């Protein structure tokens, strides 16, 4: 699909998203600075829209980067031990900071996520990249070690259900004061766009990349850091959203090939359009109630992707 159609679709869906909700808000209310309508826009609707777009772009681009540099289509952003460290952070903030504000709890788990990622990078530095399969493998192993520590305590304190409720992807709790951490990921996305060419070359293998004069290890490190930061921000503010990191980039590369400069825009746009679409549907289906995004993404996404896959395969 042409890029401009995708952009048009995104704008259209964004407008729809702004005007859906239990409280009717008309354009007139806003233009006449009518107090209540404006407040709803600023406190709830706009934060929600921004966080959906940023999360959609962030997760799908992180997936694309991760798959490209590890040269493995089945690696997702969650393979860098980030999400498991964030989960440990959630546990700690649930135990120790029960009374503090949500944003503070998020900061605690964000710090954990970063610490976990730095640890992962330290291990990667010590291993020679003789085989790219080791990047995700180390990530998975480390993630499971951290996860088992979390489970050990959560199981004893009966917190497993609370943790999975926190990490369940859900945009209905996004209001002013609870999502601002997500803004950190915007500059990271810009860096990802700038590095797109380098990631493509790194995806051709170390020898080839070195031959073309690329600082292979630095590009890998930049890539892994971007992925880890973005995915920890998203998981902490929004929760775990299935599909985006793994399947969106896979589908785009099936149709567009592996040149990241060419498909990074498509991946980003497609990711956020898809997420926005699912969110709108989730808000309409049992109006005035809401279905959590992870469910709509899981169910609707499955159907859409299966159809795409079967048609693309023919």
């Amino acid at each position, binding site marked *: 699909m042409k890029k401009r159609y995708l952009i048009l679709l995104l704008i259209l869906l964004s407008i729809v998203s702004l005007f859906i909700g239990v409280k009717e808000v008309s354009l007139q209310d806003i233009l006449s600075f009518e107090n209540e309508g404006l407040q709803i826009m600023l406190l709830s609707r706009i934060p929600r829209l921004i966080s959906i777009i940023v999360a959609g772009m962030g997760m799908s681009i992180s997936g694309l980067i991760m798959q490209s540099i590890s040269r493995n289509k089945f690696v997702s952003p969650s393979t860098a031990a980030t999400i498991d460290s964030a989960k440990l952070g959630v546990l700690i903030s649930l135990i120790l900071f029960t009374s503090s504000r949500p944003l503070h709890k998020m900061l605690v788990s964000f710090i954990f996520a970063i610490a976990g990622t730095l640890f992962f990078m330290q291990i990667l530095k010590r291993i*020679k990249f003789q085989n790219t399969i080791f990047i995700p493998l180390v990530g998975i192993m480390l993630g499971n070690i951290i996860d088992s520590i979390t489970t050990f305590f959560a199981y004893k304190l009966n917190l497993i259900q609370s943790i999975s409720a926190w990490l369940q992807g859900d945009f209905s709790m996004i209001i002013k004061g609870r999502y601002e951490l997500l803004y950190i990921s915007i500059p990271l996305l810009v860096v990802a766009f700038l590095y797109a060419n380098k990631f493509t070359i790194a995806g051709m293998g170390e020898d080839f990349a070195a031959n073309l004069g690329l600082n292979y290890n630095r590009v890998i490190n930049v890539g892994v850091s971007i992925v880890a930061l973005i995915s920890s921000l998203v998981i902490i503010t929004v929760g775990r959203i299935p599909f985006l990191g793994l399947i969106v980039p896979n589908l785009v590369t099936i149709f567009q090939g592996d040149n990241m400069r060419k498909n990074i825009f498509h991946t980003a746009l497609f990711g956020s359009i898809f997420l926005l679409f699912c969110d709108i549907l989730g808000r309409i289906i049992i109006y005035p109630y809401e279905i959590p995004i992870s469910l709509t993404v899981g169910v609707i996404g499955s159907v859409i992707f299966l159809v795409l896959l079967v048609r693309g395969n023919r």
Partner: protein
Amino acid sequence: MVRKKYLWLLGALSIVLILVFVFWGLNSNNWEYFLSLRIPKVAALVITGVAIAFSTLLFQTLTNNRILTPSLLGLDSLYMLIQTLVIFILGSTSLILINNKINFFISVGLMLIFSSLLFKALFKRDTSNIMFFLLFGLILGTFFQGLTTFMQMMMDPNEFLHIQDRMFASFNHVNTEILIIAFIVISALMLYSIKYFKLWDVLSLGRDHAINLGVDYHRTIKNMVAIVAILVSVSTALVGPITFLGLLVVNLAREFLKTYEHKYLFIGSSLISLVALLGGQLLIERIFNFSTPISVVINLIGGVYFLYLLLKENVA
């Protein structure tokens, strides 16, 4: 040969662990009761250990990818969905949940139906493209997981505890009748598979090389997926989802044995998985007093050991 020495060592270690497990603290008064509990438990540990190691090894050969486990096919998500659905609709006192035998047959049956449908979708067309097959499984698995998490969120916390029991693999209540069925199914599969080991060695060279060397790729793949599906269904229904163990033990076996031959890898990874399961279960019973799921102990110790191995050998 070093490789054989390793295997013998592992074999001896697992026998010692089995003996410790069965005979620890027996005396003339309690032996009858204890043995009646412990022997089924050891049998369950052995069966799942072998089934998980074997299915993961096969799956990695099938996909030519060292970081994948059969959980990618979505079978254990389906298992969790079945369990959650039963509790969600019928409540934790329903017959299907309490009667292990009915539960086992329903779960295995549904998982097998699911995997054969997945098959059909793949092999209807002539393109036996593994990539599409995996994406299919992955997407359906995510679908099941979405439904499951949603129901778990809506659930009464007391009911959730029943699901939590099933979220983690457990060897604490083994049902003997199921055990015998599982044993028969899995040993029949083993016997059937032995003659294919050499073929799979060739397959691990990659699709193109294998076809070039005269392997009937389409048929072999079909066979392998069927074996993996049966193994995973049976072991998941027996003890619950524990797929990370497979990734761990197969990769440990690869690091240890430095070989691509399925003969050695199969024996090695099965033995490592036995040692891990028996050791983990002993630790839980004797030290943690059942306060934590077995996967916690195995993932923690096994994962740290794996990282240590990698670091030791690949230090830059």
